[in-house]
């Protein structure tokens, strides 16, 4: 059974697709989510093999969700949309397939063949995706969207990933790896990313370690391993 996740902001659309997938029988629908943020959590937790993804969704759309998934977890993606506003042909190359709502059973069966074939080739496809423009963060019971250029540093702890900016610290579901590859933030430590534009000075310590002082006075550790790459990115 292929483990599938449905992401669509409309209840009936989710239910309809779930019923169809179950009827065909090749899938185990491990969940259905109403928005990208919910989906992100489930993807990290459940690691689905296939994602049926609506494009038009509140706050973060389907494309944005794609760019926030860790490449190591990237499922095969089938876009499901009501109308061809996004010039889907262009995305056909970049994702596995796309379906137009209302989904026809025959068309869905074709997609399933594609999915099966793709799964034999690779578990985690490599989709081209644009950079992240807004980092979704949770703050109290609100969703906050922070632009990467506003971020000073990102810190990974046991409790999760924290984005630190001028307005404080916020928790995010995104991983350091995703943020490193899809934004201009630079890795300086196993647990830290830093915004190069926010660096005030880099203090070199003994043992090949370092310390970054940000413009607002925050201190970010630099590990031996990343000092060199940091120097390279700063062209020092």
């Amino acid at each position, binding site marked *: 059974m292929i483990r599938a996740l449905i992401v669509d902001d409309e209840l009936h659309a989710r239910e309809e697709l779930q019923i169809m997938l179950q009827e065909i029988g090749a899938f185990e629908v491990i969940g259905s989510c109403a928005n990208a943020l919910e989906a992100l959590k489930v993807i990290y937790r459940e690691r689905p093999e296939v994602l049926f993804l609506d494009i038009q969704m509140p706050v973060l759309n389907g494309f944005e969700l794609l760019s926030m998934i860790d490449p190591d977890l990237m499922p095969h993606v089938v876009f499901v949309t009501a*109308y061809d506003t996004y010039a889907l042909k262009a995305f056909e190359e970049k994702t596995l397939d796309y379906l137009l709502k*209302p989904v026809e059973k025959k068309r869905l069966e074709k997609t399933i063949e594609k999915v099966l074939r793709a799964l034999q080739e690779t578990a985690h496809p490599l989709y081209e995706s644009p950079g992240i423009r807004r980092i979704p963060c949770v703050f109290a019971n609100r969703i906050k969207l922070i632009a990467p250029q506003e971020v000073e540093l990102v810190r990974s702890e046991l409790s999760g990933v924290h984005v630190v900016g001028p307005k404080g610290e916020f928790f995010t579901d995104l991983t350091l790896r995703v943020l490193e590859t899809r934004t201009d933030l630079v890795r300086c430590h196993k647990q830290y990313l830093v915004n190069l534009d926010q660096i005030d000075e880099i203090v070199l310590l003994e043992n090949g370690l370092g310390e970054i002082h940000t413009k607002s006075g925050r201190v970010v550790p630099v590990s031996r391993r990343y000092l060199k790459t940091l120097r390279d990115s700063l062209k020092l």
Partner: protein
Amino acid sequence: MKLFFALLQQMSVFLVIAYLFSKSPAFRPLTGETLRPKHKVLLYFIFSAFSILGTYFGLPINDAIANTRAIGAVLAGIIGGPLLGTAVGFTGGLHRYTLGGFTAFSCGVSTTVEGLFGGLVHLYLVRKGRSEQVFSPGIAFATAFCAEALQMIIILVLSRPFANAMALVDVIALPMMFANSAGAALFVSIIRDQKNMYDKFGAIFSARALKVAERTLGLLSKGFAPETPDELAKIIHQETGVGAVAITDREKVLAFVGNGSDHHRPGNPISSELTRRAIRENKVIYADGVRERFTCALKDKCGLGSALVVPLRLDNEVVGTIKLYEPKHKLFLNLNRTLGEGIAGLLSEQLLRSRYEEQKNLLIKSELKLIQAQINPHFLFNAINTIVAVLRKDTERARDLLLHLSNIFRKNLKRSEDLATLEEELDHVRSYLKIERARFEDRLVVERDIDPTLLGLKIPTFTLQPIIENAIKHGISGILEQGVVKLAARRENNRVVITIEDNAGTYCNEGACEGLGMNLVDKRIKNLCGERFGISVTCTPQEWTRIAIAFPAEGCQPS
């Protein structure tokens, strides 16, 4: 005494000539308010001729001539000023001088002086701001009287021998003074009457032209409807009093009113060659009934004998004609000819204006269609997807949703009217919201607060639905929390205000992309209900957007 009567007799001949003059085209300059140099030259010749005639008609007495020469000079002065008066007086005087006699010189001089005297009276009147008295018979009488008295003195002073001059003056003074004064007064009164007649005539003409203009403007301001040509023809027929009036387009008769309407029927193709020529050559065709006759192509016994065909132009292209007819037994009045051409010019202007208005409305209508066309496919897709999904679980509900969908599309198709009641609009919105609620389920809540006394209010069609659609499409659908749309209608400060509020507060971020639909609704309200009404938007980012639509308290009136 005999001389007095002789002079009066002579004066009468003179007045007959004056009367004829007042009827001739040469009189025209005197009807204007001010005299141009060209006209003054004309008047110089006319009054000089009068003056010389006055001498010729005179009676020889004691080697002198008792005459009415002074009338021409004095009047030229009073009417035309010192220069004209002196010039006419000098001419008349010079002519008298050439005839000889012992008063030749003194009479020559005195006539010139009399002209100048008349001119000074003219100057005096103008300076005192009493120039309307130039044509007063009383002034003319007094002036001529004094001028003649002056002449007598000049004769006494200049003519030799003095005894002869004294004897002459003794005989001619009173008769000449009275005859010339009375002549001048009567002459002026003839001129004045004629002038008044011209003025009155002009006033009547202006009044009629203005009346036609007013009535047609009123009619055309309501737009060009199928019955407009008929009403126009009726107005022109009534106001001009011509035998018949027709209005045509390029091919057929649109309206015909008056004599011959039994066989000149609206809807007939154009039968008259005159009309076809007017359209072809884009010019006014006039068959005066004498040199060129109007002959009816439809019926031998048609009573119409003369016609004026004026093309109606739109951007200098003939779009139709207006035709004025007179019956065979009646002359086509020049007045009506001018009036007819004027009306056609006026109508051409009006046509241009109403076409502009029409195009403006068409533009708004087609923009509205465009919006609907833009919205509908997306809405339709979403609705069908929802219904397809609901169908599997709840056929009764799916059926209900399909009925609402059909209601929406039926109304979109059917409602070509500009205005609808608030109740009808709300019904349209209710169906729309039913479908959107099914799509979003508990993500969308709608709260209504409608003053029930407002349900009959007339507002432009498709006012509410686009705004609510905006609130959902650009507001509610973009937030993660439950979306609430509040729809309220109430009276407020002598207006009716309908508000649509959502709890997304996204208008401020992306107001630009909502512009088109909303602007159009606003434009339509302003166009149909008045400039003071329409849409205003307030917003707190991330919290709420409120669209307030203001209407007149009594609703919008159909135009």
